[in-house]
């Protein structure tokens, strides 16, 4: 079989490109993200919130609203930040005006008296989002199966199939669901599924200037964020409902609702 120099060169170039491709893919996508792109069951998305790092600026909420086209001035949001102020008298004051879209600019809580700083014993911020539960009660109650869990653990809503009964909104113990003001169907955080399945990070994670939000693959024990969840003392919200949430919190206080 003769092999002209021309064909040899051609094949060599092809081979080099083919050989380099996986490496390039490796660099662009983490292995977890690449695998999830082909719907591999070795991916289970998780989330880590470092409450100590959150300053309540609301960048994440802004970014989320824009990325996911939630009308900016509507009082509903896929993710939000709560402020907790515990005073000397043992009372907990909490609020989240407009989901903290514009941060916390007012000392007053619920339009009441501003709290005297010397009265405050501790204060902190807690970002919230959908927990992509292992046992999602929202999925359980949907009468038409319009809300469902994907193989990699994200709970999604099919906008073309939801009848808008609101049962899922009622069933979620975390209050993360609402009706989309324009589409008139159930709406919720999905960790920016359109982004994470393409190797990008969720808009809120990208937008947080202080590194309070992280996404990870819980099945990949080499994922640095997963290692924190495995090795550090992390907490979840509202354990008692048995929904088995997958958003983990560092430094969660017992006052958090």
């Amino acid at each position, binding site marked *: 079989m003769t092999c002209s120099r021309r064909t040899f060169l051609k094949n060599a170039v092809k081979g080099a490109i083919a050989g380099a491709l996986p490496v390039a893919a490796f660099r662009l996508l983490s292995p977890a993200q690449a695998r999830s792109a082909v719907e591999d069951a070795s991916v289970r998305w998780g989330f880590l919130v470092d409450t100590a790092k959150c300053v309540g600026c609301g960048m994440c909420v802004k970014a989320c609203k824009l990325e996911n086209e939630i*009308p*900016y*001035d*509507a*009082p*509903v*949001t896929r993710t*939000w930040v709560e402020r907790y102020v515990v005073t000397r008298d043992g009372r*907990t*004051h*909490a*609020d*989240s005006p*407009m*989901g903290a879209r514009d941060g916390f600019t007012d000392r007053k809580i*619920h339009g009441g008296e501003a709290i005297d700083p010397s009265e405050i014993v501790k204060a902190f911020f807690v970002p*919230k989002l959908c927990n992509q539960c292992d046992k999602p*009660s929202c*999925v*359980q*109650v*949907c*009468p*038409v*199966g319009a809300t469902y869990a994907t193989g990699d653990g994200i709970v999604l809503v099919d906008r073309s*199939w*939801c*009848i*808008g*009964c*609101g*049962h899922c*909104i*009622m*069933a*979620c*113990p*975390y*209050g*993360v*669901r*609402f*009706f989309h*003001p*324009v589409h*008139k*169907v159930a709406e919720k955080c999905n960790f920016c599924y359109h982004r994470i399945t393409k190797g990008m990070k969720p808009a809120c994670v990208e937008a947080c200037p202080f590194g309070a939000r992280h996404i990870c693959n819980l099945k990949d024990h080499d994922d640095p964020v997963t290692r924190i969840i495995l090795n550090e003392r992390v907490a979840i919200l509202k354990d*008692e*409902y*048995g929904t088995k949430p997958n958003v983990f919190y560092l430094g969660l206080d017992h006052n958090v*609702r």
Partner: protein
Amino acid sequence: MVEQVMVHGAEWTAKELFVYPNEFIYWSIQIVMYPYMTGLVAGAFVLSSLYHVFGQKDLKDMAKFSLVFSLALLPVAMLPLMLHLQQPLRGIEVLFTPHFTSAIAAFGIVFTTYAIIVLSEIWFVYRRYFVEQTMALKGKTGFGDTVRRGIYHVLTLGAYDISPEATAKDHRAVTVLAAIGIPVACFLHGYAGFIFGSVKANALWMSPLMPVIFIMSAVVSGIALCMLTYIIIMEWKKFKAILARGRGDETVTVIAGVEMDVMSKASKYLLGFLVAAITLELLDIIFRGYTAMKSWDILRDVMFHKDFVKIFVLQYGLGNLVPFALLLLPGVTIRRLVVALVLILFGVFMMRWNVVIGGQAFSLSFAGFMHYHLPMIPHSLETYKEGLFGALTVAVTPFVIFWLINKIVPSLKEV
């Protein structure tokens, strides 16, 4: 540019203290109407079955009426659900792609089963009448008569045999259907209770007692409504008799005697179910208070402060205690009965309200409250559907339907 967007629920929800941003009163007046209307359907059917199955002869007049009335109420049990959907046109998906881990998914099946039972029972009760009408209208040429004859002709479904054996078979079929219908009617309504009782995120709703409480109060409201309507009909008959023959005539006293007799019998059933309903509801409250789980603090706040008037004054006081006394005190008159029945119907409505709206009166955070302001004057489709007028539409529809059905299937005349 300020976007003008309508967030579902924002219109009628007022928040107090710490409530999560996405929380609103999503299940509003139509979801109050839904269990109320299904309750009436179930109750009316159970009452009609008391005659057909247990042979309570004195309920005979009422049985036919309440059967047809429960048919008129039937589509109206569905109506509030449709009105509350954000995508009403997709409602049919519940029947086509039911997702069976959901409590609502089985609604289509339960509801259809029940509808088939009611329809076939009515058919068996009236089959003879349909045949007779077809015969009687034969040969008449007027437009109205031709149309009516056509309708009756179709309604006979081709079964023209009205020999004694055939009608005896009809009777047996009615008894069997009524007997099957009782558990199905209870299931239909207990199931409405389950939809609420199974929402584990809601501290007020989540209770295994919820379905049973719903069934009891359903039967109470159904019986009360049928009794009330029966009184109105009998009073009308009496009034006509007085007009025709004068006050002192024998027929007038006969009608009055029959009326009082039926009512005192029916009110015994009513009292029984009322006691059961109240006992269960109180048991639920006492149990919650005694076990005092995490949610009790906020529930207590809602029950004893925010909603005290609605729960203890309007529901238990005016809606239960007062009619209870009115029914038990000796020397019951029809007038006193009417007052008691209206109050009972009101009490059951308040119970539905306090469960549905009361269950959303506090935040999932257990640290804030939500107040519901029923939209009165509609200024958009949403404020109509989920406002006072939407609720009134639902309340009036069964009477319109009854009037229509009654043109073809006369439940008030002797057949």
